């Protein structure tokens, strides 16, 4: 793997590193995070949307739920302290540290299909996050029925007073890190977003780093 980014290095939680991967631009990634372990996502070059879905590793019919999450915290934006809830209204993961300050969970993932609506039919054959979720989810027995609205780490989607909403320029920077604690054994699917038609990746998809850590004293 690439050498660790010096900026992000200091923001990673202490403990023994279980997995340390660089996810290339446009690529998917997945892993089961055991309860109590930490998943850190490093925005290596800045303004890279990281589309993320969560499933109870032992019963994937229970999965991340946008409504349950935003209703439980009474706010549409995710940040430090946000508890990521399941469709059954139970915690899957908690954001325990966040260098960015705000993440989206309203605007969902890009797809080849929705690209035709947002930008025109010329974008139909561009790679998209739904494709990444489908191909990576298939490794775990998940299919089309299992895709639901997701989390977009490092993506900036302000909601205006009149309800206007859209993906605008990001507020992330190179090396910023967000760290999640698994409250249960959680299957995490990531799409390192390939979108090139809006500012969610600064029109230039870049790599991210994902690190799974066992906290000190948990081994």
């Amino acid at each position, binding site marked *: 793997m690439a050498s660790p980014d010096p900026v992000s290095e200091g923001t990673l939680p202490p403990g023994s590193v279980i997995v340390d991967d660089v996810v290339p631009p446009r690529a998917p990634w997945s892993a089961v995070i055991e309860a109590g372990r930490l998943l850190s996502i490093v925005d290596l070059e800045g303004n890279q949307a990281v589309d993320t879905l969560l499933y109870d590793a032992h019963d*994937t*019919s*229970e999965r991340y*739920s*946008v*409504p*349950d999450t*935003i*209703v*439980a915290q*009474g*706010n*549409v*934006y995710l940040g430090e302290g946000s508890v990521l809830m399941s*469709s*059954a*209204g*139970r915690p899957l993961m908690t954001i325990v540290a966040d260098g960015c300050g*705000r993440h989206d969970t*309203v*605007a*969902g*993932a890009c*797809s080849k*299909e*929705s690209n*035709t*609506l*947002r930008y*025109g*039919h010329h974008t139909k054959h561009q790679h998209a996050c*739904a494709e990444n979720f489908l191909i990576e989810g298939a490794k775990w027995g998940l299919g*089309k*029925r*299992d*895709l*639901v*609205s*997701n989390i977009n780490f490092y993506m900036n989607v302000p*909601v205006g*007073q*009149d*309800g*206007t*909403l*859209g*993906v605008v320029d990001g507020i992330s920077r190179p090396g910023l890190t967000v760290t999640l604690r698994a409250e249960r054994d959680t299957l995490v699917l990531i799409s390192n977003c390939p979108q090139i038609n809006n500012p969610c990746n600064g029109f230039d998809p870049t790599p991210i780093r994902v690190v799974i850590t066992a906290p000190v004293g948990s081994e």
Partner: protein
Amino acid sequence: MTSAATSTATTEGARAHARSQAGTVVDAMPVLPARSYEKVPAGVDPELLIWAETVAGGGYTSKVISRGSTIRLTDRGGDACAHLLLYNADQPWERLNMADTVKVPWQAYLGVGHPLLSDQARVLASIVQDTSGTHDALCGTSSRARNEQRYGDGSAHGRSPAGRELLLLAAAKHSLGPRDIPPGVSFFKGSRVAPDGALEPTGPAVPGAFVELRAELPLVVLIANVPHPLDPREDYQCTTLEVLAWRGEPTRPEDPLWSSTPELERAFLNTYDYADARGLA
């Protein structure tokens, strides 16, 4: 207790007792045939009615309807909250996608002209009339866990059923399971987003307020009538919802709605493209 004339000690008696119940009218029930419904809205041909039902607070219903049908949901008592999920009846793996429903039109608040989009970039239904203006595309429905916390019970058989429990039952009637329940939409109760992202509940709506949805594809429609998950009141309160539907035509290119925005025009093109190839246009 039953009288001697309707004693249920014998099969004949039990049959007579069962049959004697026919014709009972209650507040929440389907009316068949739908065209015999007594409160048909002005301007609607009763002969075209395909669905006439009232759903009590804490209740649910579902139906498969054809492309072009119009569904009218009416908040008769001013305190209903209709939680909906929609599926393409031809291929139920294609379903309501709330993220695309707010992202593609660049708008989180629902109103006339807003499409309810599927994950395949097609219009499942269009909002064509709305006298309420108080709806919700963000907060989904209530979970059993949340209702246990809020009201002491969230089971389908209890006194304060959670929306998700009821939608699971409605889905099961179409052989759909927990994997098939995405975030949904609710009508007559809503939320607004403050500048800092805080969610604020809105409603209750006006008694008699209604919203009309035009089915742009053949649809499986699931409806639960339960309090909004942000309902601030201590008690579980929800009044009767009226559900009507009648046959009609899907949105066509000559309808101003078709080309009202570039995104919506492409969504209608995608919808027509599918329906045409499938022989449903």
